[in-house]
């Protein structure tokens, strides 16, 4: 069965290693913070200028001057640091953030990603997404494999305005985990109970399927 949002987040969290600095986008990526295994720690970077983002505040802790990149009120962990936007993106652009997890509208076989604009429909801006995909060492895209009309989001070539080129190497969807390399999606894991055929059917771009595709561990 297709994974829930929480299950995608659980699978994402299994990618992290102890000591990773991680930037999580809005939505499913943010949920991944809830599923970091007990035996490791990651430190969350929020691109508005906070390294060591903590949980949401209690009513008593609420502070308008303490927000995350999604503009939500947050707290800082012990040992956090707070800095300017220029410093924050120096970290990101300079490759010091180990992992970025973000959503997307489309990804293609060349690792291009479209995530910020649907012409004539949605023009809110790219925020920090273009910097993040250009700067992070490892990027994971999380999204549903297909849109609500059943159209694949894993394409031979993106159709929407791009966020970045040749930058996506790993995708975790509700159906599968895929590596992006050599001009193809390489299926590495499938969601429990999801068949390779279903994944093949919902993947519009070139898909490489090995002889055996294990089920994800969550």
């Amino acid at each position, binding site marked *: 069965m297709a994974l829930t949002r929480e299950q995608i987040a659980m699978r994402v969290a299994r990618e992290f290693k102890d000591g990773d600095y991680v930037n999580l986008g809005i939505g499913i990526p943010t949920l991944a913070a809830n599923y970091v295994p007990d035996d490791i720690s990651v430190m969350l970077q929020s691109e508005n200028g906070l390294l060591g983002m903590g949980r*949401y505040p209690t009513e008593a802790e609420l502070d308008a001057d303490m927000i995350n990149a999604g503009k939500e*009120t947050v707290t800082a962990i012990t040992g956090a640091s707070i800095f300017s936007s220029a410093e924050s993106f120096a970290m990101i652009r300079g490759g010091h953030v180990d992992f970025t997890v973000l959503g997307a509208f489309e990804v293609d076989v060349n690792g291009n990603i479209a995530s910020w604009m649907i012409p004539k429909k949605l023009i809110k801006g790219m925020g920090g997404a273009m*910097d993040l995909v250009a*700067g992070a060492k490892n990027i994971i895209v999380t999204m549903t494999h297909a849109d609500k009309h059943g159209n694949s989001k894993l394409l031979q070539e993106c159709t929407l305005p791009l966020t970045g080129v040749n930058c996506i190497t790993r995708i975790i969807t509700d159906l599968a985990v895929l590596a992006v390399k050599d001009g193809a999606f390489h299926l590495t894991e499938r969601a429990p109970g999801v068949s390779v055929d279903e994944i093949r059917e919902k993947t519009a771009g070139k898909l490489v399927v090995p002889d055996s595709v294990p089920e994800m561990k969550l």
Partner: protein
Amino acid sequence: MAGFDKVVQSYEQAMAGLSDGMTVIAGGFGLCGIPEGLIAQIKTMGTKDLTFVSNNCGVDDFGLGILLEDKQVKKMISSYVGENALFEQQMLSGELEVELTPQGTLAEKMRAGGAGIPAFYTATGYGTPVGEGKEVKEFNGRPYILEESITGDFAIVRAWKADRYGNCIYRHTAQNFNPMAATAGKITVVEVEEIVEPGELDPAHIHTPGIYVNRVIKGTFEKRIERRVVSK
């Protein structure tokens, strides 16, 4: 040290010299760390055809959003403008010109402007609409685009504390774009929660040295929360 006393007593003095068609760089991220009183003063002044450089444009009735009501903004250079219905309407009708700029590139453009660096290369935006028409150059086999710096006729900044010499510190994540904005204005105006005497701020921990600051005014702030989320 009278020549270094940057404190002004009124918002009129704080924004004196702002005129139609100028470029204003504004600190703040969402509604966090915005110079509320300076924005209100610009609304009061009714200055028109302004270009604003700011990560966001507030919301409909707060932050830079209030300057849309009387169509004071000609152009907006921002990374994210999705919180504002009036903004979208003026943008789609063509009344408002918008230059969407990646957030890190925007921060760096302000810093470069203040630091006398006219342009820099970044990988951000290469191969996307942001890179269109920009110079491309390869370094170590990777393509980068050339981005030019930004300076403003005015910079409006919100700080936590400033001393009379204009040395500023920021509070928590209300820092965001404010330190870069402060460096990039021909006239930099800082609205603060508290004015202190020189020597009260630790010299090693001043975020914005007073050399960048022309005027300091004590403000009072609503500090509206854009997305109030609490732990369950």
